[in-house]
Every structure is written in C-alpha cells, then in structure tokens.
C-alpha cells in the first residue's frame, strides 16, 4: 500500500516535472552537477599568486552556468586549500578525485606541487589543467599544460635582453627560488647562453628558499657581478612573495632598469599590486598575455572579472588567462565528447581552439601543450606592463627542450 502510494506520487511528480520542463529553460538542477576541482594554495607563501586563480575558476563556473551549464548539467566548483604545502597537494588531489569525485581539476602553480600531484592524477586517471609557465620536461596524459614551455617564455626573453632593444646583455645573473622550476629553467638557459657564445664565467646563478626576505647580499653581489665592464641583466625565476622584498631591495640599492634590467618569469600584474612600482619602471617580465593587451576578447575578460570580483580596480594576469583558456577548451571538449569521462574528453581536447584574451587563437596540440604568443613587457609606474616586444604568431611548445642533452633521442612535437 505504502509502496504503491509512493510510486504513484513519484510518477505524478515526474509527470509534473515533465510538463513544466518546456516552460522553464532546461533545468540545471535535474541531473547531478558536473564537479570541477580547484587545487590552489589559499594560504602560505604562494597565496599571493594562487588566490586569484581560484577566483578565476569560480568566475568561469558562474559563466558556464549562466549559459545553461554543460551537457544540461550544472557545473559546481569544489575548492580545497593545499596551503603552499607540497605533500598536502597530493593529499588534496586524492581527496578531490576519490571523495569529491570531480570530473576535472584546475590547479597548482609551482612545479613542485605539480610533480607532487602528478602520480595521483595518473593513478586515478584524473584530468588536471595546469595554468602556469613551467620548465617543461614533462608530458603526462592526465595533465593539460596551458602555461608556457621554456621556448615560449624563457628563451625569447633572454634573446630580447641580448638584442639591441633589450640592452645587448653579455653577462646574465640567474636568480631563482630553490626548487625544480628555476633549477631546470636555468639549466636550459645556461645551455642556451653557452650556445650563443656566453661562457660560464659570464653567468651567475643563485638560489634562495621560498619566502626569502634578506636580499641585501645577493643584490650587492649582482651589482659587483655587473661591474666587470660588460652589459649585465638579471633573469629572475623567483617565485611567490619573496619577490616583494627582492624588488624592494633592487629599488633601495638603486639598481635602475637602464643599467641592469631584470626580466621575471613569475611576476605579473597581481604580484606587482602589492609593491610601489615607481623605482621598478623598465624592469621586464615575459609572459604570453598582459592585462594591457588591446583586444576585444581581453576587454570582455576584464569586464567579466571585475564584475565577478566586484572591484573595478582588480587586475588580470597571464596564469588567469591560461586558466580561462583551459576552462573554455575543456567546456568545448566536453560538449564535443558529450560526456565528462576523462578518456573521451582527452581525445576531444586535441585540436581545440580558443580565441584568447591575448588577441591570438590558441590551439591544444597532441603534446598536451598550447601554441602561445610570447610578449615582453616593461613595468610602468602604475603597476601595468608596457608591451615592448611580441611574436607575430603563436608558437608551438617544445616541452622537451633541445638544450637538454638527454632529450636528443626524444621525439618532439
């Protein structure tokens, strides 16, 4: 009796639902939501960079839900805080994949955090979108790399410093945080510089811990290194909030960009937001996108971001753009595959194209990397970048660098 009442009610409810369905737009609440994991540090030394990426993913889930969701289902974000703690990244990744059962994850900034979660994503066949420039030497079938490989950022930047516009540097100081990304990048750069006729005597290399604050000795040594009668430049792979005291020390010791320019690979608009940039005018950063790019897609991006974050002065930066591009590509691939199953989406990802805020059309290649334009910007007094150089086209990623001898036998592309 009770059972039949229940089924009848259920049938009525279902009928009612079916009847009202055409009246409202395809109901998002019906099917279980698609879950998007967000694995970015919201505390600790990397919070300065990663918090904005969490907000970008949340903005994009809002955006896709506003357009009726994906495959008729709502998209829901699951946010965790791995707290700049590398082993915790792996734990949180496992939690996302096994407990929250997310369909895709956007996350990580430092390479050490990516290396920490990589085995988890491979073991459980998850899908991670990694939005930050990195050192290459990796190609996991479970990761899509939407940031730059070294040939899309580091090498063009150093070439610029060695060119006429960049000041014809003949001596390079490589300063970095002590972990895998700076060390590998600098290894590639050293081989590249050697191939351009710059000997090891003209290369200085120093590493500091995360969150380092006492830069006086290093900056003084860079000054001395620059006093050998050859034009000198700094290549900085310093990550996280250690950049703030580093730039403060550069300013205090009076290092002007006209004399010793520095180019940074991990400092964007978001990091500069907390610094007085007037003493830093002319120092450089290399990225694949700057907020100052003039393009209609970028204007939309800016408007959407500022409306979402409810702050008309918030800035955008390159990893945010890479997150947005990755998210859009993923939604296109899911729509094309008709499912969120990782293997089907992976196949659908290859060849996806997105009109990016950088003003270029970016394509995902079979090596899991994007083709990207390279841009070099100078810091301006208002904390924005003045784009002084860019490639005419988006260039393909060489994630296995030809400057690392072990890669000689590897298939490229």
């Amino acid at each position, binding site marked *: 009796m009770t059972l039949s009442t229940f089924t009848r009610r259920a049938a009525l409810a279902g009928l009612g639902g079916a009847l009202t369905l055409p009246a409202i737009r395809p109901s998002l609440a019906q099917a279980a939501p698609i879950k998007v994991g967000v694995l970015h540090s*919201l505390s600790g030394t990397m919070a300065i960079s990663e918090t904005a990426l969490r907000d970008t993913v949340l903005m994009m889930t809002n955006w896709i839900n506003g357009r009726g969701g994906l495959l008729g289902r709502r998209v829901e974000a699951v946010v965790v805080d791995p707290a700049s703690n590398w082993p915790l990244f792996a734990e949180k990744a496992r939690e996302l994949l096994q407990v929250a059962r997310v369909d895709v994850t956007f996350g990580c900034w430092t390479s050490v955090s990516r290396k920490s979660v990589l085995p988890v994503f491979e073991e459980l066949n998850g899908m991670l979108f990694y939005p930050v420039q990195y050192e290459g030497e990796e190609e996991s079938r479970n990761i899509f790399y939407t940031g730059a490989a070294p040939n899309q950022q580091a090498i063009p930047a150093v070439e610029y410093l060695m060119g006429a516009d960049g000041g014809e540097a003949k001596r390079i100081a490589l300063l970095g945080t002590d972990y895998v990304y700076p060390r590998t990048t600098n290894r590639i750069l050293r081989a590249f510089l050697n191939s351009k006729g710059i000997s090891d005597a003209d290369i200085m290399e120093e590493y500091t811990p995360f969150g380092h604050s006492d830069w006086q000795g290093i900056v003084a040594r860079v000054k001395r290194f620059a*006093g*050998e*009668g050859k034009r000198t430049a700094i290549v900085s792979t310093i990550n996280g909030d250690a950049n*703030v005291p580093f730039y403060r020390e550069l300013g*205090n010791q*009076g290092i002007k960009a006209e004399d010793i320019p520095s180019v940074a690979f991990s400092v964007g608009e978001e990091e500069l937001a907390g610094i007085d940039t007037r003493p830093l005018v002319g120092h450089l950063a290399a990225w694949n996108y700057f907020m100052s790019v003039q393009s209609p897609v970028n204007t939309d991006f800016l408007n959407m971001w500022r409306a979402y974050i409810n702050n008309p002065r918030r800035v955008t930066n390159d990893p945010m753009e890479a997150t947005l591009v990755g998210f859009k590509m993923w939604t296109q691939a899911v729509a094309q595959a008709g499912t969120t199953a990782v293997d089907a989406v992976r196949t659908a990802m290859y060849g996806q194209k997105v009109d990016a805020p950088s003003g270029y059309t970016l394509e995902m290649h079979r090596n899991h990397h994007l083709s990207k334009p390279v841009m070099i910007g100078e810091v301006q007094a208002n904390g924005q970048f003045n784009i002084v150089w860019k490639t005419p086209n988006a260039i393909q990623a060489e994630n296995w660098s030809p400057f690392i001898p072990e890669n000689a036998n590897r298939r490229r592309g």
Partner: protein
Amino acid sequence: MPRLLVLLLLLLAPLQARGQEAFEALLPGLAGGFAQQAQTVERLGTLGDPRAAAVLRALSDGRLLKRPDGTLLLRDGERVTEFPGGAAADAAGAEPVRINNRVRAALRGALGRLSLLSPDAAERMAAAEAVFRSRAAENIPLLEAALARESVAAIRARMELALAASRLAAGQDDAKRAAISALGASSSTEARAVLLEARAGNPALGAEIEAAVAAIDRRLEIRRAAETLFQGLSLGSVLLLAALGLAVTFGVMGVINMAHGEFVMLGAYTTFVMQEALRDIPALAPWSLPLAVPAAFLVAAACGAAMERGLIRHLYGRPLETLLLTFGVGMMIQQAVRLGFGAQNREVTSPPWMQGTLELPFGVMVTQNRLWILVFSLVVLLLTVAAIRLTRFGLEMRAVTQNRRIASAMGIRTGRVDALTFAFGSGIAGIAGVALSQIDNVSPNLGTSYIIDSFMVVVFGGVGSLAGTLVGAMTLGVVNKVLEPYAGVVLAKVFVLVAIMLFIQRRPRGLFALKGRAAEQ
C-alpha cells in the same frame, strides 16, 4: 664667470644654427619605433636647441602625447599644448608616447648633457652621473665647460670621472692615458667597469688599465668588507629583535613559548592597522610607523599576559606540556589572523626616510631601512636592559627568578610578576614585528619563519643572558653573510646550523653561561 658663459655659447653656436631647422624635422622620430626614438633623442640632445630639454623631459615623464596623425602634444598638469607651437589643444584621441629601456637610457644621457649647467646642485650632480653613464665624444667639450664653472667639490669629482670616461671612449692615446690614471685614482665600481669595458678596445693600453683596475680593487676591498660586515650586522639585528623577547620569556622565565613568532606577527599586523587607521589623518599619517611601536608593544603584551594568566601559569615546571600548548595557541593565533585579515599579504609602506641608500664615509653604501632597523634593535636592547637593571619591576623579576619562595616571603606578588614578565617579553616580540614589517612580507606565516632562528640565538648566546643574545645574534648574522657568497644562501644557513649544533655539544650553556646558583635551576 660671464666670460666662460660666452665661451660656452660660442662652443655651441655652430651646433645651434644647424639646430633650428633640424629640430622640427627630427621631432616625428620621437613617436617612431624604439630604435628610432633612441636615435632621435640622442640627436636632439646634441642639437643645442633650447626647446629640446622641455620635450625630452616630457617624453621621459610620459607627458608627451601623440595624435593618430603623428603630431605631438605636451601635457603640463591639466594644460595640453601643441608641440612645437604652444597653442592650447584637446588631448582627446591622443595617447602617451611609450618608451622602453633603450630610449630611457638615451634620454638620461641627453638630459644629463642639457642640465650640466643647471643652477640646482642636485640636478648638476645627477647630470654628471648621467653623462658618466653615457660615454661619448660630444660630452667632452660640455664637461670641460661645466667643470670650469663648477665649485662644489663632490660634483667636480663626478664630472672629472665623467670626463675621463668620455675621453677613454673617444680620445687620443695621450688623453686616454690621463683618463685611465684619473679613473684609477677613484674608488668607484663604476669607474672600474668603465676601465674593464675599454680593455677590449685598447690592447695597447692593456697594462695601464690592469694597473688602474688593481689599484681600485685594493681600495674597494676594504669597502666590500665593510659592506659585508654591515649586511651581517643587519641580519644580526633582525635576529636580535626576534630573539630579544624570547630571551626574556625563555631565558629568564624558562617558558618554552612556541607562539613567540605569532606575537611578532601580531606586531607586524598592528603596524598595518595603524597605517590604515592613520591614512586619512594628514597630521599623523607620516608618523604611523613610530606610533606603531607602542601600539604593537601593548597589543602583543596584552595577548602575552592573557596567555600567561589563562594557560601557562598552570603548567610551570612542565616544559613539554608548555611547548605543545603554546604551539597550539600559536596555530590558533595564526588562523585567527588569517580569518580576520585574509591569507593574502598586507602591504606596509615604508616612509621615505627608510628608502634608498645612504653613503657613509669611504664610499660604503648601506640601505636606509636596514640601517634604521640596526639602530632600532640596539635601542630596544638598551631599553630592555634598563628595564631589567634599573626599575622596581626588573628588580622583582630578578628576585622571583632567583628564588621564588624567598621573593614571595619578602612580599613580592610572584604571580603578578610572572604575568608582567611574560607580557614584557611578548611586547618586545610585538616591537620586533614593527621592524620586520619593513623588510618582510606581513602575512599570517611571518612568525613561523623566525621562531627557529630566535631559539637558535637564545640557546647559542646562553640562556638567561641578554649580552649573550646580542653577541649570539650578531655572530650568527655576520657568519651567515660571510659564508653566503661562497656557499649560497641555502647552504650558508645549513653550515651555521651545523656549527651551532657542534658548539652546543661542547658548551651546552652557550656563549655566556650563567654561573652560580641561578644556573642550577
């Protein structure tokens, strides 16, 4: 003097006649590509046209605008005028002419040449500096003329160096020899760089250049040692500040307070709050940093007193429990700040007197913020010593630590003294936070990075001895900075840690071991 002016005008006269027509023909180049801009700037700088300075300065400050049709506008505050011409214009549709480092370097040289004769001494100094950096033959007559008029010794010295550098770049061999010895007589790293740069182009003068560089190196050696010493003392002063509060709570009272770093962090946040609170009060805003010192002391001391009364006093004599408890409280404070202020770093701006570099005698360069922190740490140390040695509170504190029961029998309220002592130590940690906000990031994690160092200093210096804390902090700072160039930042710290471990093995009581009955407790 007027005769010299005439001489200068005569020197420039032929340039000027050519310049009048050439000037306007050159101007469109200012809105071209970076290479063209740089060339145009250099040529405008040598033309001698009186209008050049204005347009170059505007370009350098981002006040030069260009219309889509290529004509130039000059913005001066609210006023926008056409250039050349000077008719008022509408800035709509025009955008600032952008420059890059290459153009900026050319501008610096050109503007330097144009302001060598400025009536303002600071401007002439900057001009001499700029001309020194852009070495070229056309600087030579300008510098000679400027030197003839210059009376300030420091500026003269700079100009002579600049002249020597330009002569070395473009002169006869005799002039070059004189230039080499002039540069070699200085003790400037820039002069050394100029000499080394010229070495490749002048193989005939190689020996002279080597000798001059060696002479500079000998003079620089002392300066570099002094600078390394300063860096070490500066690091030592930071360690001292961080450890001083601990020297009171751990050294005198024997409480292992793992939340000490969090009191430092609270002090830094108090600085931030003071800065924000006083931002809109023009009279007080520049004083927010000095005012933050007492505020940070009170905030941290209040927290310390609450912690001592509420928790620690129940655990005296049980170090392991105290350690775990204070560690937990530290995490709670950290999380509370993270909830209240957010996980993002907070920006504490430095007042102008804490920015830039100060030149001490013998050309030793020290950064202002570090210098002030060094001075500040010594003042805080002296005040702490005075409070312990000279005040009634200090006397009671020493009495209680030496013999609690007799002190109590003499009528000292030991519980109150304990609370005050702990509050005092915590307050000093808060003061350290004010100083650290100037050189480190104000984040909830600020304290964690200093807690280990603080214990290291106190244990190394000798538990219970303020002199030991001072000597310990400074020794560790200097050793660290001396090792840094050889071992790198990461390894230097490892070496220091290993050295301390070995030292503690041999002398468990640290550098300044207390003797007598106090040491036995």
